[in-house]
């Protein structure tokens, strides 16, 4: 009974914190327009535009209203699915972005499908084989890979697999906008590989650490003593108990991808939202920047929230001992 109330209080607290965080992020992001050194209308039309058309555009953009009105207006637009027009492309943000969202989601999907099982396997297996040659080689390799920025990893892959050593894979992706990203699977390989190589070392180290802790615990000892085969001990007894942190790691993983796509998409000229954010920053297309940042922040906050809840639900002792 009181246990249930504890869980609900916990969820409510986390939800409130998540919403508050998004609110603060929205304030910061909105401040971007207010702090802009130049007038947005002037910036769109260029320096030579005449005063009349600048004034007309100012009215159209709502720049004559108070900051508070502009903020609530903008927020309303974001929440109702009508975030406004791109300064640069002069079309609604959603139609500018929608194909790119699909492309990015497909890239994230491929990267997650490869990286999550891979990091679980590497982490669990090297914990099992702790201090053997396998463990030493993998953890040293993972350490080196974890230190490398993702654009360096990507460039090395490009040099090796498409430009200098072998000519197997394309160095840039060319997606047919009408067919979707799956039309160019060959072009997906290197962007996916870059994200996977960025994420796996990081996640598998966390998995390894929590597996080692579990493998040294009493109930695993007990399972061994009662004669369960090593395989059963590892997968049935140990792994489920190492899963709590793993959920958090998956969330971190998605968050990592949310940031990683910016560089990776720019590197491979991949038509996704990460590349779009880079391009918008270049031309100071403020509405698009605001929209994309809010989307990425929301993804991050929601995945973290989901991870926290999942952790609580799979870990019995957390369910009873909640603040």
């Amino acid at each position, binding site marked *: 009974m009181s246990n249930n109330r504890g869980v609900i209080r916990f969820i409510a607290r986390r939800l409130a914190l998540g919403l508050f*965080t998004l609110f603060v992020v929205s304030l910061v992001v909105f401040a971007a327009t207010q702090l802009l050194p130049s007038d947005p209308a002037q910036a769109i039309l260029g320096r030579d535009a005449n005063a009349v058309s600048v004034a007309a555009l100012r009215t159209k953009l709502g720049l004559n209203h108070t900051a508070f009105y502009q903020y609530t207006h903008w927020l309303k637009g974001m929440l109702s699915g009508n975030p406004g027009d791109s300064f640069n492309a002069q079309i609604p943000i959603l139609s500018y972005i929608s194909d790119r969202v699909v492309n990015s989601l497909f890239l994230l999907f491929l990267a997650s499908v490869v990286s999550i099982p891979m990091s679980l396997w590497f982490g669990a297996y090297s914990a099992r084989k702790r201090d053997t040659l396998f463990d030493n080689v993998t953890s040293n390799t993972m350490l080196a890979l974890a*230190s*490398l*920025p993702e*654009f*360096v990893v990507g460039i090395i892959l490009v040099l090796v697999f498409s430009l200098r050593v072998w000519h197997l894979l394309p160095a840039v992706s060319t997606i047919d906008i009408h067919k979707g990203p799956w039309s160019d699977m060959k072009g997906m390989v290197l962007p996916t590989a870059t994200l996977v190589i960025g994420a796996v070392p990081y996640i598998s180290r966390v998995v390894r650490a929590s597996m080692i802790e579990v493998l040294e615990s009493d109930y695993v000892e007990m399972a061994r003593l009662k004669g369960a085969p090593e395989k059963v001990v590892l997968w049935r007894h140990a792994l489920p108990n190492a899963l709590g942190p793993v959920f958090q790691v998956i969330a971190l993983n998605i968050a990592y991808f949310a940031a990683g796509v910016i560089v990776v998409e720019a590197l491979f000229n991949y038509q996704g939202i990460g590349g779009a954010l880079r391009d*918008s*920053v270049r031309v100071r297309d403020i509405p698009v*920047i605001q929209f994309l940042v809010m989307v990425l*922040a929301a993804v991050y906050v929601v995945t973290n929230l989901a991870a926290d809840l999942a952790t609580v639900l799979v870990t019995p002792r957390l369910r009873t001992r909640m603040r």
Partner: protein
Amino acid sequence: MTAADVTAADPGTTPEVASRKPPGVIRVAYRMWRTRVGTLIVALLAAIALFGHLIAPYGERDAVGLPFTPAGKTRKHTIFGSAKVGHDVWTRFLYGGKPILIAAVLATVLALVLGTLVGLVAAYNRGKLDDVLMRTMDVILALPQIISALIVISMFGATTILIILTVGISTVPRIARVTRGAAISVVERDFVAAAESLGESRFRILRSELLPNIAAPLLVEANLRLTFSIGLISGIAFLGFTPDPGAANWGLMINENRQGVLGQNPWGVILPVIAIAMLTIGTGLVGDGLSRAAAGIDRSKGGDL
């Protein structure tokens, strides 16, 4: 560099713990080959980044021939051929590390100072102040660092100071969390109560009682953050955002010379890629050595792993 600062900060006001622990970690770390090799690599790359321009054959913006020409075919003599706009690859390489390394070190130092302060204050005061501080940290953490950086750049442009401030401040919560986590158990110890009853000032307690006792995890975290800052700052440059688009910069070099790889001269990409890779792996190795030493993993083996 930052390592020495932290450990040298306090030579031991609380005799038995404070004076032994931090130097212990470093000494143990340097028994391991990974720490030594890492330090060697970092020293080499730092030397190239900081003093390389002194031995550069040409000026940073001098043209030596047509763009992307391999060595031997350029108008003037070159070792690695020419880069974009006909610059000398070797010269650009020798110039291009400085902006990244200096910005990364300054951002890390800034984050270390502010993060340690926030973490210590939160751990020592607990209660409301702790809540407010750590929730603020959570909000900063809600944005991936590269996105914070891009927001700031879109507003004010990519000036050096702004990049340092943004990377530094977005790193603060990561250091504050580690500091707070390590300091919370120290706050409960007797010598802190003793210092309180002697009427020591709050600042003195934070600096002389708490700080020396959390130096080991702080050292590890600072190193990790330095590695990430190097990657982040060179990544921002790779995206095309640098204070001066005409100046040499390893991250920018990789981006602008990519078309040269398709053509005839890959060195404009290969050299900076090797440099950034070695620099980050080097700091990663030092960090790994430090964290192994802090965790006491290799204490028994004497470090021939």
